[in-house]
């Protein structure tokens, strides 16, 4: 993968509006359960760095709070992301970063689906298939070079 030549060298950068949620009294009460919700999952992924730019996925509007869907009781999470340009060849890598981040952060009971938002990428189906195929993901993560790139992108997300 040659990332010296940037696919999109002048992306639109948005002002970050989301902030950490306020801590309530009930957050310290063990009698109250806090189900995993979309805000919590979005918090996990919003600071992932873009592979090309020193900007977060949130700043580039690749990820968006409204495009994270969580059903805690059914143990399902669906993330839809928006590549900055329709022919972005980094789409699969960005999706992979999101998947790895959630693999390392969400409770293991969740089944996570990651998709390119409909109509935002020219090879949408192909990318979606790649991202949700367990074996292909596992194989990709065995590639040490790729894993290094992913770890770099995730370094800011901790």
């Amino acid at each position, binding site marked *: 993968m040659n990332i010296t030549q940037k696919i999109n060298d002048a992306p639109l950068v948005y002002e970050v509006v989301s902030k950490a949620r306020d*801590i309530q009294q009930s*957050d*310290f*009460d*063990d009698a109250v*359960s*806090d189900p*995993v919700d979309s805000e*919590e999952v979005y*918090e*996990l992924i919003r600071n992932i760095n873009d592979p090309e730019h020193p900007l977060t996925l949130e700043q580039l509007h690749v990820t968006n709070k409204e495009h994270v869907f969580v059903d805690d009781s059914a143990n399902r999470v669906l993330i839809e992301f928006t590549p900055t340009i329709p022919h972005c060849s980094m789409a699969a890598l960005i999706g992979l970063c999101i998947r790895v981040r959630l693999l*390392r*952060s*969400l*409770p*293991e*009971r969740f089944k996570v689906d990651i998709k390119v938002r409909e109509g935002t990428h020219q090879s949408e189906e192909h990318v979606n298939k790649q991202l949700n195929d367990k074996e292909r993901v596992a194989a990709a993560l065995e590639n040490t070079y790729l894993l290094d790139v992913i*770890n770099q992108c*995730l370094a800011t997300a*901790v």
Partner: protein
Amino acid sequence: MVVQRLVDAYIIGLGDNANNTELLQKLISSITSGDTSLLELVQALGSCLASEEASRRSKGVQVLSDVLNGLPESSIPMQATSRLVQFFCARLEDATCVPHILTAINALLRMSSFTTQFAIDVLNALFKEVHVQSFQYSTRSAAYQLLELVIQNHPEAVKEMGSDFVLGFAQMLDGEKDPRSLSVAFQTIPKIVALVDIKSNAEDLFDVIFCYFPITFKNRENDPSAISPESLKIALRKAITCSSYFGSMAVKPLVDKASATSISAKIDAYETLAAGTLNFSSEDFKIQLETLVEQIREDVFMSSDESVVNAALDTLESIYSVIILPKDTSDTSADPAAMVDGDEGETASPLDYVLKEAVFQLTAEEIKNSEQTGKILRAAARSSAYNCSIVSDAVIPIIVERMDATEVLTVRRELMDVLNHVLSASCDVARKAECLEADKINLLNIYRPDTSIPLDKEYSFLHITRLKGITLLTLLPAFLSEDETAVALQTIARASIERNEEENVNKEATHLLIQLSQSKPEQIVSVVLPLFFEAMRDKLIAVQKVSHLLNALGAIGVSASRILVPVLKGLSDLVVSGELAPPHCLATVSTIRKVIEAVVAVSKDGNKESNADLCAKLIGTVIGSLSDWVYGLAQLSSNGEQAVSLLVLEISRAVVATLSRIDEISQAEYLSPLFEKYHGIALQTYSPGTASASADGGDMYPSTLCHLLPLLSAAVCSCWPQTKIPVSDLSDFVGKLSVVALNTTLQEQRDASFEMIASIINKTSDAKQREDMVRRVLQPTEECDSAASVLIRHWLARALVSRNDKAGYEIVYWLLELISSSSSSSPSQLAQYSTMAAESISIVLGDHDWSITSATHAVIKVLSKQRFYATVVPQITTRFKSTDKEQVKTNLLVALTSTIRYMPKSVLMNGVEGVIPLLLSAIRLTQSSLKAASIRTITMVMIESPDTLQKELSPSIIPLLLLSLAQDNLANTVEVRRVACDALSLIPEKYIYPVVQSSRKPVLRALIAARDDHKRLVRQDATKAYNKWLSFGDS
């Protein structure tokens, strides 16, 4: 000959780079003592100085220079100075000798025998013979130093040389690249300009200096020369702007540089232009004015960088302040319009460059960039009162006319924005333009509230702009009449009070009131405050609105000292009058307390006297009436109302904030009526079932009044040690309080008694009296085995330990004995309180609102905490080791954790190793707060001294932390689980992988489970720790 031998050895040493200090000292001391003369030294050096070999000549001069630098003035006779100067001047043509000659001349220059003529000779030789830039830095530095010394010691020489000096200096500097030398040279230039008329050489000198503009360099870290880029920039700026002769040459290139793309260069150019206004003539600027204004406009309109905009506007203001002056400066009231039209005739005013564009913008169909236009107009107008009049006269009629003609709200807002900027300039120069008076009615109309415009988000900008305008009109000197000002203030106050969808209008209005409170305090008090108080009286007022009003009032009160007392007085009157709905009383009293605390804290470092006066005034007005009010409330209320207790607590804190800051006489004056009122209540024991008894045998008071005792306690505790407490016998009083505390069933009464006993004993300086008091306090405990008889010892320990009294430690040992006793095996009745005694150890060191704190003048000796730690912790450790009873061990751990929790970090780290095993046991405790405190202490040790824990890490610390993550254990509260995650996430940062290799898998497993915790905060911390452990050991 001794000298010859020394000189030879010295020269040989120079060749071998040997350390010649000893030889030099010998030479110097032999000349100083008179054994050898300077002449003999020169003779001894003769062969070297006259040698044909350059290096030998250089060495010869070096010896002479070294010796001259070390000799005191008295050892160099006048004649010798003259000869040496002649010699050195002649030798300056010998390039190899120049470095040492310069240092030698610098040594001679400090002598009083060095005459002005010598200075001229040296300078002539230097400028003629030496090409300074061909030498290395140290030599160049010596040359600049020489010039500095001449300017400093022989300014007449510089004056006499005149142009020759300037030219020589310019040649010398030409080509210099070292920032250190440049910094010195730039600083020299203004000094030269002050001495010499540089008219004929201005261009030469300017060319040499200006080529460095804009100057930037990066200084290396730890650079010993310690020149910052900023200081170099300033030095160059001063050099460029130091002479009026530079003006004609500097302004044009500076204006050109202002169009540079580099932001720093742009700002530098602007700032240099502004600095130039001090010396450059106005004509220099006038020629370039059009281009400059154009450039400034471009930057103000286009630049996204705030600092560029500000630099540009400041420059505009500075330049206009010098280039336009009224013809007759003494007559500031001269009509500017007449001057522009009449005196100057057809010639355009320099302000036209600004005004034409502004007028164009203002008359355009759609007004764009109103803020920027306004800013430029304001900068131009602020330059002088005269210019302000010109700008106002040109702009305001246009705005007024257009406002009349248009109904489009956006256009009106833009126009108002520009108008606000112009008016703010009038406020800044403190002079109103003539046209303002003429247009007064129109202006008032512009800002008149328009009720047809809804107060919602869409129009909030319009409202805010209008409010700002009203504020400016109010601030304009002698513009609004008294009545008009009142109406204006009412308008702003209403905007602040009335809540609407858009909070920004409220906030802005409050902010404007705060601004106005500085200049119009009287009107704020007479007009604005009543409106606020009226709004608070509304019975149907919502909680949110009350808090908004209180915040606004608090901010207004804090902003100006003259408004503070009226605000607090008004609020307290509101509370006392009973007009305030009961739920809002507490919020109001709380605001009063916060405002008082904020004000006295701010002025802590300021004028202590005025602070004390303020506090005295507040006690007389606010605190007094609130205390009386709450007294009446307590009399009426049924038993044990929590609301009263909370009110009393707030008022007590206000009492502490004010009373602790007045002198002891005023404190005593405050105390005496207070004691008359509360003395009986404090000494009356309440207990249900039995008849209440008064220790004084006086009248009985209803028990509800006991809720008021914190007021007495706060007042007693706030006193200085020397303040006279109004009781006949203090020891007796303390003894009686002790009896009451032991027997009462009302917690407020018991705590208040404890606080007063502790504070009085702590502030008693006489050791004997103190001892007597302690005895009296403890006496009743001998017949009493209640919990209070244990707690009273905690309070005594607090009072005595903080002043390093050994009696305090005896009490602490008694408590430790109790803590170490088990209720099942001990015959003593008190043993049942051993756990409570352990838990209450925090009383000894913990924080309190007023009893024994440094703010309330308690005697707290330095190192008292250290001493407590050093004495008590080993005791706890020993007792822990010697017991095998689980309960006792738990008690001791509780006591230890409570002790450690209040220790400063520096104290704790000293000898922490011994405590670690106990802390680890404390993690097993079932009390969650102690568990969390223990883990926190472990974490702190991990940060401060990771090596201490290294051995314990894998065998005990990590397994204990993992156990603390389990959510099925009730002791593992959210807080415990979070601190455990924090501690775990710290390990990969502080230790190398091999140390904890074996624990990685179990840690990851436990953290995976913790990632599914039912509390979100724990999940977040667990995820953070998991990711750190996951990458731990990878690299």
